[in-house]
């Protein structure tokens, strides 16, 4: 899967809740693998899933996910 410039703190928030990926997946209605992919930054979740995860962690989406602008080489030229 291609890398996306979406950093996240999902793992930290999940650890704070004291639950594992399987339990987090069950709460969010997705597989454990999807939680793992998101935590590694290999998958950008949909807005719905991001909101669900934020609700589970009792924080805002921006607290979990951080978008880092990529420097566009064409623009520089």
């Amino acid at each position: 899967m291609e890398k996306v410039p979406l950093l996240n703190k999902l793992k930290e928030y999940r650890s704070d809740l004291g639950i594992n990926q399987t339990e987090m997946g069950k709460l969010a209605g997705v597989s454990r693998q999807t939680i793992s992919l998101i935590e590694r930054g290999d998958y950008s979740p949909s807005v719905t899933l991001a909101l669900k995860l934020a609700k589970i962690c009792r924080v805002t989406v921006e607290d979990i996910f951080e978008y880092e602008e990529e420097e566009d080489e064409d623009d520089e030229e």
Partner: protein
Amino acid sequence: MKSKKRASYKNGVIKMFLLVIIGMVIGGVTGKLYFTFGENMTGVTGSFLVVITKIMLPLLSLITVITVLGGEYCYNRLKKIGVKILETEDEECDKWEYEEERWGGILVNLGVVSQVLCFVILSTGYSIRYIQEVSDQRRGQFLVSCIIFIICYFYNAIAQTRYVKLVQKIHPEKQGDPFSKGFQKEFLGSCDEAEKEVIYKSAYHTYVMMQRTIGILLVITMLLHLFFNTGLLAVIVVGVIYLVSTFSYTHSCVQLRKRKIS
């Protein structure tokens, strides 16, 4: 931007030109080979097919035994991996889920390879002319070959069903009865967004691969018909697959776009 576009067109034209040259070279080499070894090649191919027909029964039996042993081995590996998936957590589980995907792929591919081989081998004797011409003993052997072929075919079908059931046991959220008509739809419906992305990417990759393979197969079947008079049927079959895969893809794209505006 314009210079980039121009370079892209230039590259495209160069690639097309190179493909034409490669085609000309392949055509020339094939023609030369045909006129040098043509008759021998026809003879060798004919003799090879006769040998295959003669050993059809032991060959099909061997393939069936390998399929069953290989299938059972893969299934047992998958069962053990399933236990590990259920026992482990987080990062460690990632490793076992990858193993699950890998062994599942091996099991499915083993089944497909064995089915294709069985089809090809059985087809060497699968003609009324062959059945009428050969001795009673050979006819009996052919009948037993057909039974072994059916056993192998059913084993593969059962192996795939067992694999799906095992996946559903490991991942209870996966839905769908493998014996039902709408299994694929139900199974896909029970996958989450990340899993669907993987499936869609793999499906598109398969479509692109199919288009390339069909192009190559069309050239091969046409060349074989040109030199060895293999018949039009092979060309027509590949052509029909080409049409169906392209129509199916474009139809699906249009339908999805239509759903967005309605």
